[in-house]
């Protein structure tokens, strides 16, 4: 009835929980609600935590403790594996891109120095632009920016790699949509997919910056790099100094040497280098830029990306938490855990006995010496003869009352009946009443008094002396058939 989930680790990732728990709860809906309420309320009594996430996970741990291990990987396990693989892939891609970009940008073959402006434009300005776009993507979806966010999302390498991975890994299940920015539809899923995509891109960006930094440090340490600067914009050395001075403001207190001085800026401009013989340019003028560049990459590339990664990871955690807690089945679970359990009790399952019992046979046609008894005032005694003549087309010699006085009165009636030695005794009963054992006792006593040859005919009469309904007749018919006396019959008239 309920699929038991695979569990190989004592504590699953939050994403696995967000997939597995709702899926398990969905299947669990086949279990009667009261049963689920009883179970979940009992677990809630043992869980002391108040945070809903912790309560749900604690509940899951207790439920899952009873589950039978299953070796088939679940969709949740596949998804978590995909998520981790894509994260690693993004890290590798970012690192490779960083390594390649740094190698190209810091390329120096001894003929012309590395242009500081190019380094700054590609490794700082371009990154700042990308950070700006990422921030735009992080904003809540609102009219006007939705289309821009879609475009940025389409360009996002995280979305691209996830879509490619899904195709290659043939992950066609619904859960795989969670990894795809363009296919996650419901609000909680869309939010998760967005932050997943942003997190992946930030993983790549952090790896990129780290690789750039490492490559730059490596090149600076192990090769002989020379730096200069050049731009077609109308900038003189003073303007350049003001710009670099402003850019270096964040790290100046920590690393004063990483701020280029006016002399370095003036002497390392390309046309000055071209005018002077390289041999006469002091080495500090060619290499003095590297502290500034490294500090800029760290401050404007690596650090913002690390912050964004932290922020995105936290948001992803929140989105995953919502993925779990916003699920209707999980909300229903929390409702059950927090609700008072009202039990109204259950009977022990007494079953109705089969009622397919053959109709009792019709009594033999004989009017000789027939008498009638109105049991428990089924009809007034003085109307009995007329009623039987009208509805049963029989004639009775005398009518008696029984069943509504004392047992002694019934005994006296029986003696009078025996004295008449009847061939047939009609017992008129109230059709709507259930046949009691008291009546059975009375019929047994009649039999003792009138002998085995006498026919005893039970005649159910409805209220107001009407004929018994089909349902009433059926009840009496079954009772008569069960009575066990072959000469006890049933007639209900016509």
């Amino acid at each position: 009835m309920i699929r038991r989930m695979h569990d190989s680790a004592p504590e699953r990732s939050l994403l696995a929980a967000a997939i597995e728990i709702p899926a398990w709860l969905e299947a669990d809906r086949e279990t009667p609600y009261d049963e689920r309420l009883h179970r979940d309320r009992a677990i809630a009594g043992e869980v002391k935590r108040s945070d809903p996430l912790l309560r749900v996970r604690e509940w899951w741990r207790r439920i899952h403790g009873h589950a039978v291990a299953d070796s088939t990987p679940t969709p949740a396990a596949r998804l978590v594996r995909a998520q981790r693989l894509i994260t690693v892939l993004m890290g590798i891609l970012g690192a490779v891109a960083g390594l390649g970009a740094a190698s190209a940008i810091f390329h120096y073959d001894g003929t012309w120095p590395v242009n500081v402006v190019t380094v700054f434009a590609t490794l700082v300005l371009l990154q700042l632009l990308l950070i700006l776009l990422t921030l735009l993507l992080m904003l809540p979806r609102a009219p006007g920016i939705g289309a821009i966010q879609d475009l940025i999302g389409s360009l996002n390498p995280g979305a691209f790699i996830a879509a490619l991975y899904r195709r290659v890994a043939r992950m066609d299940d619904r859960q795989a949509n969670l990894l795809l920015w363009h296919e996650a539809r419901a609000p909680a899923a869309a939010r998760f997919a967005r932050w997943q995509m942003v997190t992946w891109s930030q993983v790549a960006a952090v790896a990129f910056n780290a690789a750039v930094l490492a490559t730059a440090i490596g090149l600076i340490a192990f090769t002989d790099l020379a730096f200069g600067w050049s731009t077609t914009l109308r900038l003189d050395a003073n303007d350049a100094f003001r710009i670099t001075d402003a850019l270096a403001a964040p790290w100046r207190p920590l690393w004063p040497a990483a701020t280029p001085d006016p002399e370095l800026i003036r002497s390392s401009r390309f046309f000055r280098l071209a005018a002077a013989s390289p041999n006469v340019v002091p080495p500090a003028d060619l290499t003095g830029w590297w502290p500034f560049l490294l500090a800029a990459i760290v401050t404007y590339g690596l650090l913002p990306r690390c912050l964004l990664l932290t922020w995105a990871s936290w948001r992803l955690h929140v989105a995953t938490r919502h993925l779990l807690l916003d699920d209707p089945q999980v909300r229903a679970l929390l409702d059950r855990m927090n609700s008072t359990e009202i039990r109204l009790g259950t009977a022990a399952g007494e079953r109705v006995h089969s009622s397919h019992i053959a109709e009792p046979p019709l009594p033999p046609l004989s009017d000789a010496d027939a008498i009638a008894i109105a049991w428990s005032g089924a009809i007034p005694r003085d109307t009995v003869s007329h009623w039987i003549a009208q509805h049963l087309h029989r004639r009775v010699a005398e009518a008696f009352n029984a069943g509504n006085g004392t047992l002694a009165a019934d005994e006296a009636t029986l003696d009078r009946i025996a004295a008449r030695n009847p061939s047939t005794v009609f017992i008129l009963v109230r059709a709507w009443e259930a046949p009691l054992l008291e009546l059975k006792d009375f019929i047994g006593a009649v039999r003792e008094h009138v002998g085995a040859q006498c026919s005893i005919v039970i005649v159910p009469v409805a209220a107001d002396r009407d004929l018994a309904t089909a349902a009433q007749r059926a009840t009496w018919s079954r009772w008569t058939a069960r009575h066990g006396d072959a000469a006890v019959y049933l007639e209900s008239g016509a």
Partner: protein
Amino acid sequence: LSATHPVFAIVGHPNKGKSSIAATLAEDETVAISPDPGTTRRSHGFQMQSDQRVLYELVDTPGFQRPRAVLTWLHEHERGADSRPAVVREFVAGHADDERFQDECELLRPILAGAGILYVVDGANPYGAEYEAEMEILRWTGQPRMALINLIGAGDYVDEWRRALNQYFSIVRVFDAVRADFGKRLELLRAFRELGEVNEGWARALDDAVNALELDRSARHRRAAGEIAELLIDVLSARESAPAPEGSDHLAIENALIEQLKARIRNREAAARRIVQDLYRHRSLETQEQQFNLLSGDLFSERSFVIFGLSAAQLAMTGAATGAVAGGVIDIAAGGASLLLGAGLGALVGGLGAMLGSNRLAKVQVLGTPVGGFRLSVGPITSPNLPWVMLGRALLHHRLVAERNHARREALIVDAGAGAHLADSIEGGRRRRLSAAFKRIRDHSGLTVPERDALIDDITGAMSDLGRHGAAGPAP
């Protein structure tokens, strides 16, 4: 039996609805109910518990079978009015193993242990003097007694029953066990309270029981509203899609998808019905409900190109943006002299290239898997009437189920026609909010938690609206 909570023994003649009353009050559809006498052979306790605390207990008992014989025995052993309960106790003790009086002993035991008496008769049929022996035996027990006039058929003999019962019982109430709605059940519990006033603890427990049941009822309403909300969200955001490669029969694929979608919606609706019934403890209830016809014309369908999860339009935008970046590099190289012509041309070329090249790109395979292709999707259903019809049907079903008595055993018939127009009786402001919620579901394939909670509030309110206006078609 414990004296710490109120206990009531339901006693009477066989087949007067004792088990129906137990089934109704215990909301237990499995209680054996049969027209044949002797269906209940043993006493069964039904405890109402609120988080392990027993608030009251009903004991369903077998009916009297030989009351006059019992009364005769009691008269024979009478020692005075003060010792009558003791004489009854002696009868039960002396006949514990007597097969003839098994039913009487079984029904008298809980009473002698302290249970209040709920004596059940059928007010749809005439009073009979043979009941007097039963009532007299009960009077002999000395326990607090209430008579319940049940109505099993169409007749009305309530007045003559009242006249007779008033002589033996301090409280006489009419209670139709098979048709009593929740309000009537609470009224009955409040009447039990009058019976329980002899014991202050009992009265308090019964007050708590009424309060707990009312709270539980509201919670169940809200859970049912939540289920209806989920049904609407699932149906309004339902889509089906399948690959539709070049050269395939798109019409056949579309028809197959439409059928899939219809089946999915039908199954979803049936599942929601089952869950709502389960919430009200009607798991075995058979429901007869007409399916409504989902028109294909109300379905949104499209065939679109998808690559890496990107549609053709998204792909073109991506191509344009990539082209613009490449063109921008040329602009930078030209020192701004190109007046951003490079970026513009790059965007145009990139966008067009992505659009025109999409077919070829679709055929590209990575590790044997094509990276893209055409997909045909069907849904969501755009008919503005659909959510209202579904809501109306769900509200009607809910009302019938919520008020359905657990003693009834016939199938539940939901008049689909009545349900379809039920939404008309929802209050105006609520209708507008619901309409806005339906639109949001379609636009966003679902709702956020606050939006969903608001939808559940409105559906719960709509349930009340229907209850107030009594516009829910056939009576439950």
